């Protein structure tokens, strides 16, 4: 039976996380994500979960890693300045392969920036914010309903691949209220735990590149370190083991990219142009492609920014003889770089950017498209 609810984006994130089985949240107040912490402080104790407000964002991120190692699905939520503070530990989670979900409700930056205004300027930080080569999954929902289902997806990916997953919201979709119909069947994924005690190696390369994960307290010897480590989890600087580990960390995501990527392609016309957009900007783009004034323009929405639906985009461009691509985003051109990398010389890629703290209007975008067409 479907449930129709009027819901705020941040609330949808909370409901999705609880539905996914999240039982541990550590956070620190920061606009525009604070509602997530406030709501969970009320809801988590009622389902035998644990809410902790930590002394800063560094410790919030550290605490969810600790809790996840103990077996609970864990999450933290923040915005730009807090996301910056979490970066070192996000790298730690990637290296130690600890499943966790980090919600970043984007606001204007850099620094304190525009705390109450919308922005999409943490796209590159969500991919490369922490040092070192590392895998990561980044998901950017467009609607409040998306937030609910994609929060569940974020946990499923974190558990399946033992990676930190960044749920990239922005101030508009986090604070807007929309009617949400919760009618879809959902699947919940849990991390694979070791079957037998005898031969357990915490970082052994299993068939899919994802080691099985024991909880602290299950009775296994379990050594966790941010240093490069061997299958036992013990530190090493052996070049062969190092290379194997870093390769496996990447391959476990790359090999499954086609199963991970989420995207939508709307109103694609042969020989036409293509808009690419995500998050709140994609909402404005939807308005444009169904607007008669601009003919022959389709919309591609990547929900997973990393891994990016690369092959799918290349095929779409080829199959439909796309002439031009417009990338609309609320920053100075971050995903634009990624799109240019993917399409190379096959077609022109033009950025449509706004970074004054306000959301696009449809006119902002149509004007830029018309200018380019002329």
């Amino acid at each position, binding site marked *: 039976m479907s449930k129709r609810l009027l819901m705020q984006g941040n609330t949808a994130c909370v409901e999705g996380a609880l539905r996914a089985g999240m039982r541990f949240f550590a956070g*620190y107040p920061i606009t525009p994500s604070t509602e997530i*912490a*406030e709501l969970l*402080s*009320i809801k988590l104790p*009622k389902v035998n979960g644990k809410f902790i*407000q930590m002394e800063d964002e560094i410790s919030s991120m550290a605490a969810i890693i600790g809790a996840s190692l103990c077996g609970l699905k864990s999450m933290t939520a923040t915005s730009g*300045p807090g996301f910056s503070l979490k970066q070192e530990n996000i790298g730690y989670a990637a290296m130690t392969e600890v499943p966790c979900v980090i919600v970043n409700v984007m606001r204007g930056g850099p620094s*304190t920036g525009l705390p109450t205004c919308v922005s999409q300027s943490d796209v590159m930080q969500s991919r490369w914010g922490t040092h070192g080569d590392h895998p990561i999954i980044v998901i950017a929902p467009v609607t409040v309903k998306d937030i609910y289902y994609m929060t569940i997806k974020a946990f499923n990916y974190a558990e399946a691949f033992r990676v930190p997953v960044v749920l990239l919201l922005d101030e508009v979709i986090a604070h807007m209220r929309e009617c949400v119909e919760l009618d879809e069947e959902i699947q919940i994924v849990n991390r694979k735990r070791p079957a037998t005690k005898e031969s357990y190696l915490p970082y052994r390369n299993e068939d899919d590149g994802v080691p099985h994960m024991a909880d602290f307290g299950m009775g296994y010897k379990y050594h966790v370190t941010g240093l490069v480590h061997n299958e036992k989890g013990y530190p090493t600087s052996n070049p062969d083991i190092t290379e194997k580990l870093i390769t496996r960390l990447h391959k476990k995501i790359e090999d499954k990219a086609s199963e991970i990527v989420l995207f939508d392609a709307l109103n694609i016309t042969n020989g036409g142009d293509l808009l690419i957009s995500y998050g709140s900007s994609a909402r404005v783009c939807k308005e444009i492609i169904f607007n008669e004034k601009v003919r022959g323009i389709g919309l591609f929405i990547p929900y997973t920014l990393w891994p990016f639906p690369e092959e799918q985009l290349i095929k779409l461009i080829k199959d439909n003889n796309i002439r031009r691509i417009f990338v609309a985003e609320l920053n100075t051109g971050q995903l634009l770089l990624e799109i240019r990398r993917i399409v190379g010389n096959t077609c022109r890629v033009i950025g449509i950017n706004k970074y004054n703290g306000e959301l696009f209007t449809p006119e902002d975008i149509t004007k830029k498209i018309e200018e380019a067409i002329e």
Partner: protein
Amino acid sequence: MPNLKELSKKPARLTGGHRMCAGCGAPMVVNWVLKALKEEDKAVTCSATGCLEVSTCLYPYTAWKDSFIHSAFENAAATISGVEACYVAMKRNGKIDDTYKFIAFGGDGGTYDIGLQSLSGAMERGHDMVYVCYDNGAYMNTGIQRSSATPKGADTTTSPAGKVIPGKTQTRKDLTEIIAAHNIPYVAQTVPAIPGTKYMFDLYNKAEKAIYTKGAAFLNVLTPCPRGWRCDTSTELDLIKAAVDTCFWPIYEVENGVYKLNYKPAEKKPITEWLKPQGRFRHLFKPENEHLIAEIQAEVDRRWEALLHLCGEK
């Protein structure tokens, strides 16, 4: 004792027209602290992220007469450390003539929690600066979340009083004692100026001592927030008096390791006088929570007794 008439003639270094809430205690604290500066001395002021920073610097204005830095949330003490260290070097090299003083302000969130590391570092290195914490007992700027300065039992948006928990379950961190343990020249705890009390000039005197003591100094000032305390703005100075009279917030100082109690209430009042008028403690007066009031009282008594010993009053 300073002359009130003369003090009132000193130009305000935090001007009116800022957008702090009606009844907010923070600008009162800042103004009294800055009044302690000699008129001829210049200052670099710094504020951690918080109500004070947001509401005193609304585009296109600033309420700060002196040089002002808003740093990242956790860095007020570290940022001003850098400024002070550079000033000392420039002064030594004869590149600067004026006398500057360095004063950082932070709320309890930016001081007790996220900024504790940078504060501790600055105090230990001994920069010639004053750090002033205006402690209103929660993250008021983001909508009243608990901090480690929030008193036990308080209802906040992240320690919501209800069936599962009776407000914040932990006791308040004693930051003044933590900073005193850094063995810096001057540490003091006080309250805003309340006319008619014996401690009316306590904040002013302590600010003056802190600013003109060489080395690191720290002031912790209990500051009313009608929004977070859920109290009427007209009652807040009475509440501060209650905090002092119940010994919830003793007025004392530690100068070169020597403790001194600056005000001892003639009669120690029960903690309920501090708790009862505040909406954030309302639920504590339900019959099922009575034991919590007894626990809070016991904790206040214990800390008060310990302080009396430190101050040589017992």
